[in-house]
């Protein structure tokens, strides 16, 4: 089973998914992420899926779960870099990822987190 690395940049955690995830890795990632948010006191999480070509309903749900989970720990989650084909697939599957923030790329994702924190604090 492959573990996805979680990088820390200031008070933001960056998760860049580079491989096709199986269900086990997804569950492991959720646990790791919750642990790291608590231990590092991060205020934002960015999940970069630029390299992901296939998203199934399970991974689609993962985004919602992670977003809800990190929100409880006072960190906002942004999913960035979704490919057009992936977006179309998710829409066809009927998943609209309610409650998940999205941005076009990593840069805009970071800007969005700073903006959100600026208005909140």
């Amino acid at each position, binding site marked *: 089973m492959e573990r996805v690395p979680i990088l820390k940049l200031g008070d933001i955690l960056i998760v860049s998914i580079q491989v096709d995830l199986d269900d086990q890795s997804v569950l492991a990632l959720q646990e790791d992420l919750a642990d790291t948010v608590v231990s590092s006191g991060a205020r934002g999480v960015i999940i970069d899926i630029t390299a992901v070509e296939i998203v199934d309903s399970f991974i689609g749900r993962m985004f919602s779960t992670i977003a809800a989970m990190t929100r409880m720990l006072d960190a906002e989650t*942004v*999913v*960035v870099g*979704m*490919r*057009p084909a*992936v*977006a*179309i697939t*998710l*829409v*066809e599957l009927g998943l*609209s*990822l309610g409650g998940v*923030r*999205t*941005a*076009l*790329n990593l840069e*805009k*994702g970071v800007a969005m987190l700073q903006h959100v924190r600026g208005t909140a604090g």
Partner: protein
Amino acid sequence: MTVPAEAARRRIVDLFLSSEERLLQRWTQLSGASSDELRDLYQALHAALSGEEADFADARGLLAELSRGRVRQGHTPSDTARLVFSLKEALYEVVEADGGPDALRGFVWFSRLVDDLGLYTFETYTSARERIIFDQTEQLLELSTPVVKLWEGIVAVPLVGTLDSARAQVVMEKLLQTLVDTGSEQAVIDITGVPAVDTQVAQHLLKTVVAARLMGAECVISGIRPQIAHTIVTLGIEFGDIVTKASLADALAYALGRSGVEITRGAPTRVAVRAERA
């Protein structure tokens, strides 16, 4: 082939080969085509018939070219077929002058040959026509879905014409790809040129907006005419929290506001001042 048939065949080929000028003249008269075209065709047939093995590849190639050319000039398929068939009539006159039974019997064989060639032109004609239609459909699909940049970070898709599933898919893919390529966070879908909106079209629009949202961009739908607004409400289509505007200008103003651009009216221009004085 039986011996008399063989003789008949030889006789008609002889007649065909020996009376070039007479045939060509009559053929040109009957078909109304240019004599150069027919001369080329005659020579190809001449070569095919005088050889040991009857090989009509050259003649067919010429016919295909002729047929394709005539599609472009707007001739009907009957015209093109008649051009080939009129050779029979021209040859029949030669056969009648000859008067021999062999020639008459051979004419039946020759006539079948010309029929084949005629049908061949018809087939080429249709396939050339289909090719043109296919190309045009593709061009239309490409033409009809431009994605234009309105401002830094704002793109628009002016939709013109009926939106079917195939087109909606192309529009969606092209818009989303442009969002990625240009890094635009605001998109405007302008449906001023869409004649009617039914549940299916609305469904396609909604899907596009949701997909754009998933990627982190906001979509505004603009150009909803009064009748269309009426239809949408009557059909009970829910646009939910999707922003809709009456005109492209409103949508642009909204998108500019969302991307943090402020528009202020500057000092009046000379034209405006002159208009005020008048």
